[in-house]
């Protein structure tokens, strides 16, 4: 992809990620995160990972974030109250540590041997749904099956955790079909 396009997308991704961690209102944080996800999906498509890019939009931005939105509505979350001043020192230390983390990651990854070099020409059919499916169902079949069991466990677990406990049966004479 052209350098100018990458600079624009990278700036957009970083700004919206910063928006996610700094906004007070949870719904604004969520929208900023959706912008980050969509920007990353565009970067994926620019890196020839077309199927993964569209899946990012369909699954992540289209489903997981809607789940977050539902929970925010369900809990009726309002704007976060500003934390007490005692935490300011803690936040300053946290900020410094994050800056150190960025510096470390940059030093490690920028000079890593596999990270350098220009992009090679992609092999034919790279990133298409046929190639992804072939690889997925041949080399990674066991992982695929285990992931499907994991998803089933997640569904059952989420329902079991989140539903209200069934109310105990009321004491007294059982009511007839007419509820008399």
């Amino acid at each position, binding site marked *: 992809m052209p350098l100018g396009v990458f600079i624009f997308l990278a700036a957009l991704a970083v700004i919206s990620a910063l928006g996610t961690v700094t906004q007070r209102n949870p719904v604004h944080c969520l929208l900023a995160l*959706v912008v980050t996800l969509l920007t990353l999906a565009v970067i994926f498509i620019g890196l020839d990972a*077309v199927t993964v890019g*569209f899946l990012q939009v*369909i699954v992540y931005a*289209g489903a997981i974030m809607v789940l977050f939105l539902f929970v925010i509505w369900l809990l009726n979350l309002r704007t976060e109250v500003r934390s007490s001043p005692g935490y300011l020192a803690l936040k300053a230390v946290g900020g410094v540590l994050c800056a150190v983390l960025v510096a470390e990651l940059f030093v490690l990854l920028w000079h890593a041997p596999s990270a350098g070099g220009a992009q090679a020409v992609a092999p034919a059919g790279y990133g298409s749904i046929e190639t992804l499916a072939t690889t997925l169902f041949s080399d990674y079949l066991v992982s695929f099956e285990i992931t499907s069991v994991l998803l089933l466990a997640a569904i059952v677990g989420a329902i079991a955790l989140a539903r209200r406990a069934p109310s105990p049966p009321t004491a007294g004479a059982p009511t007839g079909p007419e509820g008399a």
Partner: protein
Amino acid sequence: MIDLLIEAIKAIVVVVMVLNLAGVLLWFERKGSALIQDRIGANRASITGLGKRMGLPNLGLVNTLIADPLKLFTKEDFVPEGADKFLHALAPFLALFPVVITFAVVPFGDVVQIGSRTITLQAANINAATLYILATIGIGVYGIALGGWSSNNRWALLGGVRATAQMISYEIGLSLAIIAIVMTYGTLDLQAICRAQGGVWFGFLPRWGICLQPVAFLMLLTAGMAESKRVPFDLPEGESELVAGYFTEYSGGKQAVFMMTDFAEIVLVAVLITLFFFGGWQVPWLYRDGFHFPGGAHLWLPQLLVAILGVVAFMIKTIAFCWLQILIRWTLPRFRYDQLMRLGWKGLVPLGLANVVVTAIVVVLTSGAH
């Protein structure tokens, strides 16, 4: 340079056509519903009064297409107190944008050859066009959700929550129907799917997708109408319960944009049904060099006329399915919300999965093992 100009013209034509068709559908809906309900409908406004003096019936075109939009766009734009101003303003456009950009990958005709240049009648030719459509339909949830939430109104929020839950539930049914089609044709490219529906079976039956996937057609129609929250699935809008559901607090231009979204989604569902099940721009027995009738007669036509006939056929089929959705709207009563959810999860999803399994078996058996 010329290529860029042609692409720009195609994109502009597509957007203008979609928005105009959404407007024309508004008139269709008003007069069509009047026809179905045995009443007259809008027939008062006229500009010069000439038609009335000549004794012609007033078709309500000025009323619906000029007076109503003018009224809507000049009304006061009211933002409720305590509402999130930014999101309240953003939500209608966030709802309209994904629906309109979906039309970028829709092929409305076969190629046109002008001189030495072959122009495909599709604004953007991407290989994974079907995935793109699913992605934009998924993003369309946010405009509705934010419209309901940002209004600081409990009925709007309730409508928004219902609408979001309904849309994400029926997305699964929609995706399963589209997956069955993709398996049948073996490609995600929309133009390739349309081209594969050319030709005939047994010498006379056009190879349209409805003969291969009738169940998926019904699923797409149902899930599409549920996605666009049309009656019988319009409980989120709930005209008799929630005032206007998620767009209660919208007035003026923003309400006009929400309604335009509604009609653009009708066009989108009609276009998808046409592309996947009714041959898209294919006219029966029409090939690139003219008509080849079943009896053996051959009528030669110039290539430009063939392309134009394809585009006209696409438009006619799309308008026919828009009319079908309007007909269904004014015939069926509204579903209760639990009936709606039950249909989506316990009806469409198992049916779609069974359809996918049967399609897979048939595809493997008829094409040999890979």
